[in-house]
């Protein structure tokens, strides 16, 4: 039999933490780094280590994404105790939508990278493609053949 499954996803880098190691050693850390840089390239953003609030104060984060449409930037931080991935920005002045789009894209890229790596680890030949849906936005299609 074959089937079709749908899932909602959540990022939490807790594999290394549960083994008593630091979150930077988590296999997902490098994947998140890759997803952030892919998002920066796709959306013409710079990757930094800070973002700013309305008053111009700099806030440290693990990855910051800054661009013309979101000059204060959006920060991504992994909680060192729980592995939860937190997206933060100061949206005052109408940046909420752009911040949401960046967050969605990072999560989408992260999920796609994980799926491609999982299929490759199970010896599938993997192909990745992208389609743009007029309503649902970008979709990433991953095909694995064994």
């Amino acid at each position, binding site marked *: *039999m*074959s*089937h*079709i*499954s*749908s*899932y*909602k*996803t*959540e*990022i*939490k*880098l*807790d*594999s290394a933490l549960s083994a008593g190691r630091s979150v930077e050693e*988590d*296999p*997902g850390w490098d*994947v*998140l780094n890759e997803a952030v840089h892919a998002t920066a390239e796709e959306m013409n953003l710079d990757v930094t280590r800070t973002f700013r609030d309305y008053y111009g104060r700099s806030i440290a984060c693990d990855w910051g994404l800054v661009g013309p449409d979101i000059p204060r930037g959006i920060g991504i931080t992994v909680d060192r105790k729980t*592995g939860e991935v937190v997206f933060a920005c100061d949206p005052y002045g109408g940046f909420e939508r752009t911040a949401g789009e960046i*967050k*969605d894209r990072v*999560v*989408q890229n*992260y*999920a*796609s990278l*994980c*799926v491609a*790596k*999982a*299929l490759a*680890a*199970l010896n*599938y030949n993997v192909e990745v493609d992208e389609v743009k849906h007029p309503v*649902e*936005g*970008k*979709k*990433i*299609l*991953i*095909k*694995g*053949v*064994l």
Partner: protein
Amino acid sequence: MSRRVDVEVGRSGQVKIEFSGFEGDLCYEEAESIGKILRSLGLKAVPVSITPKTPSEIEAEVGVEEAPRRKVSVS
């Protein structure tokens, strides 16, 4: 027939996976293996729906299965 997994990752990370060419419950075992690797990479995938394919969909994938043959005594 080769085994095939087609995955669609939507906006904000919703994942839809279609398994094709798997016999019996092997597709569920494969889904579990994939889920295990995703978890180790930090991606928790919570099932929203699981829809088995219909007999006609499976037939289209793998062809009509022959009924198992059994011996009969001829006297």
